[in-house]
Every structure is written in C-alpha cells, then in structure tokens.
C-alpha cells in the first residue's frame, strides 16, 4: 500500500535524534509489549508479513505521532482480536469471557534459544519457483501500486538496476500478508545507481541496494 510507512526519499521529517547511552527500552511497558509480541506470535495465527501490514494500516497522522512501541501495542491488540485469540469485549473489560478455557502458552523460556534444527527461516530452497534473472541482468522494478502489503518501495518503482546477488527462494510477503499462501519466489539484491533514483544531484558513485522478489522485476 502507498502508506506513510513507505518513507524512503521523503523530506521534512526533521533531524536525526541520536541519544547517548540509549537504553534498550525507555520504559518498562515497552519491553513488555515487545515480549508480548514475540509470545503471541508463537500461536502462529498470523505471520511476520501480516504483522508488518497491521502497522502499515495505522492511519498516517497517527503513525507519525505514535511512538514505535505504541504502534506495536496497537498492532498486537488488532491482531489478537482479528484472529480470535481474544474478543473485543475481553479487551474492553480486561477480563476473560465467563467460562472461557485457559490455554497453554506455546512460547516458553525454552523457545527463546531455539536449537539450530528448529531455527525459523523464510527461505524455501526446495520450492518450485523459476528464476527469471541472474546476476548481472539489467532489470526494471515494476510500476505496481497494490493496496495491500508489498516490499517494493515507491522510490524504486519504474527504476532500472542490476541484479547484484541471488539470495535464493523466499516466502513472498505480498501474498503471505494476506494469508494467500507463501508463494515462494526467487529473491535478488538489486543495485540502483543513486542518480537513477534521485536524479543528477545525487552522487554518480553512490548506489542503493534493495532485496526484491522475482515478480517485482522485468528485464530492462
């Protein structure tokens, strides 16, 4: 979606505020909501892409005003209700519905240090997907404007680049976020010259690299 989250190349956002000796969490609740996010994800009712999309759905003015973890709080409440882990009434009252069964949490202390064998991965190396490009190919990012989730930022759409690296086959976020399946595709690192993206005023030496899926690209 062409949302405020897609902010690469925008002006007017102000100076970068670098904080010396910044704590990991500025307030206790930030750590709690971060941890809750990890723990409820283990119910596997949604996926990482749907989680990102839930933040993108926060209206632009609110997105810019809310702190980072306020957005996580809003996202988590929305996902919990949408996917039926809690009801809106339970959120409103703060109490479990009368007679509801107590569940057993899937995320425990042991889950925090997964062994190599159970390490999550977004790669799908054995999926049946064709690579339309190889390293060195000139490509153009498609001009697409999907209303749903996508990882092709606006600033790269319609721009020409070169395939720099082939990462393998990965879950496709655009469909995964909508629960339309993983539909794995080849993923590439694509080099775009800064001047191709931003015009003559950019440095002729500089470049931006984006990780883009096969269907985001056409041969240039």
């Amino acid at each position, binding site marked *: 979606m062409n949302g405020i989250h897609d902010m690469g190349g925008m002006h007017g956002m102000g100076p970068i505020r670098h904080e010396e000796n910044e704590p990991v969490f500025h307030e206790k*609740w930030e750590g709690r909501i971060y*941890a809750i996010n*990890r723990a409820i994800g283990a119910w596997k009712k949604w996926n990482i892409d749907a989680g990102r999309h839930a933040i993108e*759905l926060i209206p632009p003015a609110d997105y810019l005003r809310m702190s980072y973890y306020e957005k996580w*709080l809003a*996202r988590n409440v929305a996902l919990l209700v949408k996917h039926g882990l809690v009801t809106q009434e339970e959120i*409103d009252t703060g109490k479990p519905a009368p007679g509801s069964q107590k569940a057993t949490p899937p995320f425990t*202390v042991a889950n925090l240090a997964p062994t190599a064998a159970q390490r999550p991965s977004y790669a799908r190396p054995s999926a049946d997907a064709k690579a339309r490009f190889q390293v060195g190919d000139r490509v153009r990012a498609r001009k697409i404007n999907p*209303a749903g989730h996508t990882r092709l930022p606006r600033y790269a759409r319609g721009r020409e680049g070169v395939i720099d690296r082939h990462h393998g086959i990965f879950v496709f976020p655009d469909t995964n976020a909508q629960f339309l399946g993983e539909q794995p595709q080849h993923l590439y690192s694509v080099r775009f010259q800064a001047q191709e993206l931003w015009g003559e005023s950019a440095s002729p030496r500089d470049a931006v690299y984006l990780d883009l899926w096969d269907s985001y690209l056409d041969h240039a």
Partner: protein
Amino acid sequence: MADGSEPLDRRKFLKRAATGAAAAAVPADMHAQDHEHDHQVVPSDPALRTKALESLLVEKGLVDPAALDAVVDTYENKIGPRNGARVVARAWVDPAYKKRLLADAGPAIAELGYSGAQGEHMVVVENTPKLHNLVVCTLCSCYPWPVLGLPPVWYKSAPYRSRAVIDPRGVLREFGTELAEDVEIRVWDSTAEIRYLVLPERPAGTERMTEEELAGLVTRDSMVGVAKVAATGGGKP
C-alpha cells in the same frame, strides 16, 4: 482499502487500536465521530494498556509471564552490539574467518554462538578506504537482532528512514562522519528477511591490540554504517 478487500480495514483497525483495556481514557463518542479522514485519539497511557493487556493474556493462558521476563532480560542484558563487535574483531584478526564471514555470514556468526530471530539470513558487507556501506529499513525497522540487539530509536524513526536512501552523505555528516567525494556509498535498504551487518575498517594504530581490545573499539553505529571505528573509540555506541 477503498475496495474493502483488506483483511482489516482502517476504521476497524483504529477503533480496535484505540480501545483496549484502558479504553476509559477514550470517550466512546470519539469513535462515533465520522470524519472524512480517519481520526484516532491516541490513548493517554500505553503503560496502563500494556499492563491490562498482559494480565488478560496471562489469565487466558495465552502468554507465560516467565517467558516475557526472559525475553526482556535477553534483549536488555544478553543480546546487543557487543555480539557484533566480537564478530568484527574476529574478522579483523583472522583472515580465514573474515573470508567465511563475507562468503556466508550466517554460519560464520553462529561459530561465535550468535543466532536467532531476525538473524536468520545474514549478509556482511565490508567497508574499505574507497567503499562505505550504510544499512537502513525504509519500510519498517528491520535490524540484525542477534548481533546488534534491538535497534535504537533513531534507526526506527522517520528522519533516518526517509533520508538514508536519498541523502546518505548528509545523514553521515549528521553523525559526524565525513566521507570524501571519491568514496562510493552503498545503502542497503532491508526490504526482505536478509539482515545486513557492516564490517567497518580496522583503524590504524591498532596493530598491537588483542582481539578483545579491538572488540572494545567497535561501536553499534559503525556496524550500521553511520560511523567509523576510531582507535580510541571504546565506550561509544
């Protein structure tokens, strides 16, 4: 959303987002107002709402409070930029390790015991006198947690996310990093599940330092690419 095909339309989303266990902070009639644009009153106290949410989830058996404690403890005390600094120092003193790290970062980083969420697919990019790498996530906040911990606020904020790709030299100047015109800058926008770590240049005058001393010089900022490592830079972020 205009076509209503989204799994969660905006108005529903913001209603849900604005309610919550401390919903008393938001008068009900605020939700009823139907402006042409979406309108949300941010609840006054996210701390209260988070606390209420946690106790509801614990009561329903959806989360284990001990696991929440462990997550917070892990990211406050165990996983952070010291991990990445050890990777960088090892690469500086051990050419064979550096070769493995640049060829396939995941296994090389795991050799030092670091792996886990948001580090599943790692790529390390090397700075040289003629090449400087900078990492950003313009769309959200992607960051290599196992080696750098959770990102600082500036990394997740609009000013950095918006400008890193269009004006990397200006951004670097804001961090006090001045690069000569003939240095190429590569900005890595983390649009997929690949996570990037910058291998900064080893500063001159550190030839006699031990691996551990070198790790002490490496800052978080240098591994994101907004700063260089100084021979006396220990203790800085």
